[in-house]
């Protein structure tokens, strides 16, 4: 078997067998599943009231006569406030409200209860509101009254210049999908490139490196590590996507209307895969470079922050990216290789990215990966076998020229 393939296999198998990898890969679906179960079980534990609550009222206007029994609540009229108060303290009713004489001009309703609460419950508010509306609109058809209770049910459609419905309709799904996807992308990129860094550090600390290099070239070593760990990262992503699909089905029984509105444009998925691969390759090569010049795994991890922090910059600029995708800063984030993956994922969920911008962004990424791969191979040759001191920047630049 080709030596690079052997290395890929070795790195892949060793990574997917790591406890930390298995735990992290399963943690996301398990935690999400527990969350979903909790969301379904906990409301069920709050037993709904089966008895009909009595709520008293005093009408000082004189038009609120039509009683109402809905939401397991019965409204009981009282002639005066004193009678209502006595009924309340005697616990004949749960609460009562007073419609003041100037209600028609102020809308003021005074409510009295025995228990303190943050705000009136939505049931009570609906009951009172429906009761008021029923009486105010007396004489209208039931249809009109029902519509007055719920007058707006909005459904908006984004049209293209040609007047046909656009592919991206915005809304909740446009926000949530890029957000979830960019976080998953980041996690997958960070874990697998983190393993690369850790692996290199361990091989340096264990002094395995030189034994490896007696059988394979630095280029084979780098390619094998990057691709083997990348395959492990891809497995992680696939597990997450499959479980996300499964979780969505469970979730749709709880929040059907929200999940139902989630729609994944196909080009979004394609871009997601392209940018995962490119983003991972870029980070992996950078991490390999950092790993080769760091004497220990721990020092490598500290140094790697220089490159991992910029990756999440687009998350901070999410607002700008969403509201002004044509802004120059957004274009720079789209083209700069380290920020490109997350920026493009966030942008693509919201609006169409001009094709030329995508092509420029992808080209810059590919060129950076290739350039960094060559530079890192040189670093590998020079520094993989240097133990102890970390080289300074001048030495690194010199080694690029020499190797």
């Amino acid at each position: 078997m080709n030596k690079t393939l052997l290395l890929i296999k070795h790195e892949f198998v060793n990574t997917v067998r790591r406890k930390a990898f298995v735990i992290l890969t399963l943690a996301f679906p398990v935690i999400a599943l527990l969350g979903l179960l909790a969301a379904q079980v906990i409301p069920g534990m709050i037993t709904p009231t089966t008895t009909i609550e009595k709520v008293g009222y005093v009408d000082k206007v004189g038009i609120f006569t039509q009683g109402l029994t809905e939401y397991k609540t019965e409204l009981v009229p009282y002639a005066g406030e004193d009678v209502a108060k006595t009924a309340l303290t005697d616990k004949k009713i749960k609460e009562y409200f007073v419609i003041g004489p100037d209600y028609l001009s102020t809308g003021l309703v005074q409510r009295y209860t025995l228990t303190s609460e943050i705000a009136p419950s939505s049931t009570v508010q609906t009951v009172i509101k429906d009761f008021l509306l029923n009486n105010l609109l007396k004489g209208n058809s039931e249809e009109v009254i029902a519509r007055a209770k719920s007058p707006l049910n909005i459904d908006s459609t984004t049209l293209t210049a040609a007047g046909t419905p656009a592919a991206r309709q915005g809304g909740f799904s446009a926000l949530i999908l890029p957000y979830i996807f960019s976080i998953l992308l980041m996690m997958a990129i960070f874990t697998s490139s983190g393993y690369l860094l850790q692996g290199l550090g361990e091989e340096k600390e264990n002094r395995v490196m030189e034994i490896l290099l007696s059988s394979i070239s630095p280029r084979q070593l780098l390619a094998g590590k990057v691709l083997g760990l990348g395959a492990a990262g891809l497995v992680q992503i696939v597990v997450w996507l499959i479980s996300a699909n499964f979780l969505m089905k469970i979730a749709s029984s709880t929040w059907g209307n929200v999940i139902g509105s989630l729609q994944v444009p196909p080009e979004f998925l394609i871009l997601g895969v392209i940018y995962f691969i490119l983003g991972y390759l870029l980070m992996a090569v950078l991490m390999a470079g950092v790993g080769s010049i760091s004497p220990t795994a721990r020092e490598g991890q500290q140094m790697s922050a220089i490159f991992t922090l910029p990756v999440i910059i687009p998350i901070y600029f999410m607002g700008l990216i969403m509201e002004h995708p044509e802004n120059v800063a957004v274009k720079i984030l789209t083209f700069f290789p380290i920020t490109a993956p997350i920026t493009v994922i966030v942008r693509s969920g919201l609006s169409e990215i001009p094709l030329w911008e995508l092509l420029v962004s992808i080209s810059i990424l590919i060129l950076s990966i290739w350039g960094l791969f060559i530079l890192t191979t040189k670093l590998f040759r020079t520094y993989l076998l240097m133990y102890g001191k970390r080289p300074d920047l001048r030495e690194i630049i010199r080694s690029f020229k020499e190797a």
Partner: protein
Amino acid sequence: MFAIEVKQILKAYGNRAAVNNVSFDVNQGEIFGLIGPNGAGKTTTIRMMMDIIKPDSGEIKVMGEKLNDGSKNKIGYLPEERGLYKKMSVMDTIIYFASLKGVDKVTARKRGEEMLKRADLLPHKNKRIEELSRGMGQIIQVIITTIHEPDLIILDEPFSGLDPVNTQLLKDMIRELKNRGKTIIMSTHLMNDIEELCDRLLMINKGRAVLYGSVAEVKSKYRNNAVLIETKGDLTGIEGVTGITPHNGALELKLDANTTPQMVLERLVKKGIVINRFELSMPSLTEIFIKVVGDEHE
């Protein structure tokens, strides 16, 4: 064809030449010693032979050609800075490193078991590397170095960190490899090992080759003009002897430039002195080493 041909290799780090114009050949089937004090450039030379570091100038041929993927598989290399994956089992380690040298799994397992058995390590084959003692780990490394039946074996400071029992085990392994026709290059700063095992040697100091040839040649080149004698007779007044010093229970007679050992022997016999032992006083490699390195310091 030489096992290795090194022609005028040079490698500088900054302004310091780690290896400066070093040339040597290694014959097939011999044990070749690379000696020198710490920091002399031995490891750098070996790394260039393994194509791990590129020389700034000069040429290295392994088995008559430049090192490539195929010829790498014919070399077994035990680096000075060596270790293994701590979490891997002994057998998995052997199989993995053998596979990188082009040995299939079945063969690697079979040979690995044989070699472990010879080193009395077979009961440990399923243990993790981190559970082994350091000496055991080193023996596993030697097994990995030779599992693919290489024609050329390069051992960088092979005895460092080994206890006497494992040192002897390794020496036996090296001799056995030579008997099977393998070429062995070993670097060390311990002269006794070279005298005991090597056919030829190269001594480097501060990046330069200072001694090169067979062990016997080097020793005779640095021979003192002196003889060792064991006797109870009176040695005063012998012509051509400039000094007498005790030396390991015998006496060392220093001779002047016009006197050969043969002439001294004749004069002693003429005087009727009874001689129990007479031999040329040869310096040990350690003495040569100290002399050469000391001279370089001046």
